[in-house]
């Protein structure tokens, strides 16, 4: 998480460097929190490159696992930041379902233009994130429990509301409305690239994923707020003692995870021309998995946004790789469970060995 630029023009006094063992470039790379995820991703790529045959390594294969990775990756950044601040959000999956349904209802029942429905949905979803944050901060209860409750509440209320208004839990949106909308294209644009059997679809979700990860990495590594995130996760009491607005940091991050859930929901709704109350199920577990593969500590205070993005990549490669390798899809969860376990052990070893932490 530390920057490398600070090492420039190092004028360490002789007495200091006497006690400093020479470290190789490799060792310094390994000392970064995302290094374990990188090793895992390369390993997964090689394994499915061998198993998945030619298809996995083609442009088409690459673009399809990037799209799957992007779905998780879009929420993984905010989830990693929240975990670094020492909190969890299990309700994001329900928020994805909620945000999509709000767009669907506003367009089909209230007759709002698509762009307005998207805007209202994003605002409402983000507000639910704020509510999550306020409950956690005010009660002092573990966010794991609070957001487990809101996971059920939001999913359940979305179902109740949808059933009440439309009588079904699935809402189709007229594709003509979507293609005529000025901003829907930001969420469902795609481009066919390559030629012949090499043709693949470059989807806009991939750009969202990269953009959000880049902004998140900047936020964590290069801004005051990023320093506060690490501090709040390290010790809320100590951070407060030093003047960090702990409650504000936490509530902002809950809002951010909810907001990223609404971006994912919008992408799905605009791509599939529909909303479904069940969308986004288990994405919270995928996102936590990618954050942990990416070197973020479950206990908070330490982690990496870049690592979470690489973790999402590993997850996407595993999911698509299994399909291309003609392995029964049931093995996917076996693969993910193994990956997670290996990643945790690896990250732990790397932290002790190279970052010097016990």
């Amino acid at each position, binding site marked *: *998480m*530390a*920057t490398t*630029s*600070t*090492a*420039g023009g*190092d004028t*360490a*006094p002789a*007495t*200091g*460097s006497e*006690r*400093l063992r020479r470290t190789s470039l490799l060792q310094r790379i390994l000392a970064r929190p995302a290094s374990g995820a990188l090793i895992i991703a390369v390993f997964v790529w090689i394994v499915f490159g061998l198993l998945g045959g030619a298809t996995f390594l083609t442009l088409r294969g690459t673009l399809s696992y990037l799209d799957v990775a992007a779905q998780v990756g879009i929420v993984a950044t905010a989830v990693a930041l929240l975990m670094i601040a020492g909190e969890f959000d299990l309700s994001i999956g329900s928020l994805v379902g909620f945000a999509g349904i709000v767009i669907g209802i506003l367009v089909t029942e209230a007759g709002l233009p698509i762009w307005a429905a998207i805007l209202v949905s994003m605002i409402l979803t983000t507000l639910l994130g704020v509510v999550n944050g306020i409950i956690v901060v005010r009660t002092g209860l573990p966010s794991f429990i609070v957001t487990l409750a809101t996971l059920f509440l939001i999913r359940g209320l979305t179902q109740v509301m949808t059933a009440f208004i439309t009588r079904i839990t699935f809402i189709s949106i007229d594709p003509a409305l979507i293609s005529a909308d000025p901003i829907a294209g930001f969420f469902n644009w795609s481009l066919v690239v390559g030629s012949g059997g090499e043709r693949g679809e470059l989807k806009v979700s991939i750009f969202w994923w990269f953009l959000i990860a880049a902004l998140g990495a*900047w936020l964590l590594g*290069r*801004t*005051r707020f*990023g*320093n*506060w995130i*690490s*501090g709040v996760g*390290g*010790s809320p*009491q*100590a*951070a*407060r*003692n*030093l*003047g*960090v*607005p702990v409650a504000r940091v936490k509530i902002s991050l809950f809002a951010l995870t909810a907001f990223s859930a609404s971006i994912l929901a919008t992408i799905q709704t605009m791509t599939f021309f529909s909303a479904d109350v069940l969308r986004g199920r288990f994405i919270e577990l995928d996102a936590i998995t990618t954050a942990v593969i990416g070197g973020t*500590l479950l206990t908070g*205070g*330490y982690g990496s946004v870049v690592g979470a993005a690489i973790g999402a990549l590993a997850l996407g490669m595993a999911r698509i790789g299994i399909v291309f390798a003609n392995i029964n899809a049931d093995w996917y969860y076996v693969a993910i469970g193994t990956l997670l376990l290996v990643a945790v052990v690896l990250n732990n070893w790397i932290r002790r060995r190279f*970052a*010097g*932490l*016990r």
Partner: protein
Amino acid sequence: MTASHAAPESRPPAGSAPLLEARSVSKYFGAVVAVEDVSLAVRAGQINCLLGDNGAGKSTLIKILSGVHQPDAGTLAVDGQPVRFTAPRDALDAGIATVYQDLSVMPLMSISRNFFLGNEPTTGFGPFRHFDAGRAAAVAREQMRNIGIDVRDTDQLVGTLSGGERQTLAIARAEYFGARVLILDEPTSALGVKEAAIVLRHAISARNRGLGVIFITHNVQHALPIGDTFTILTRGRSGGTYARGELDAAELHRLMGGGAELEELEADLEMLAHREARGEEVPAVPLGAEADGGMA
């Protein structure tokens, strides 16, 4: 040796109000009386030593002064004006910086990020405003060096520092940000003789720069030479405030509640030395010698 409860008005710039005061503050944790009806004032150019045995309420009192706890009764005043600190940020903004007993450092953050946590320097404009890592590293390195620690690498995680190095970081940080009042809660407990001496000298130089200093210690040898006033706490209540010269080491020990134990310990040790000299069997653990560990 009479307890002069009024702070000695004569030595600091006369007539000026104390920089920071607690007026008859009380703090209760459930049924526990942590602090009750205690007053403390620190003036510009003065070191106030706060003394008392374990659990006497020293840390609770300075946490009230630092905005961590809100008093259940009594008030705070800055420059004679009543104030309310709702969070440590308020105290920091009033120029009051504190080294907490638990140090308040983040093991998983780098030295320079710890140093500036809550007070990050930034550069750039508008949306590109960002943490000035280069400046943070340079200042942290320089401040740590001033106080006797040569940092090898300011990107090093604080969790990999020694206990004394962490304490030094917390002290250097408070010294850098404390514009008017410096509160040090047992700042020398983990330090070697040389490093402790440097910290004491820094407390003196802060006083000479016109800051007010509150210094908590169990070590009478550290308190006596630097203190201008001495406030004693016993079981949450004030045991009086004494001016420099009113007390010697033995009296201070007695007031801190450890006098009797120390005398007993000395007597025990003397007896053992006698026995050993006569070639007698010496028990491995002398009776009643459970010495107070305060002498760092």
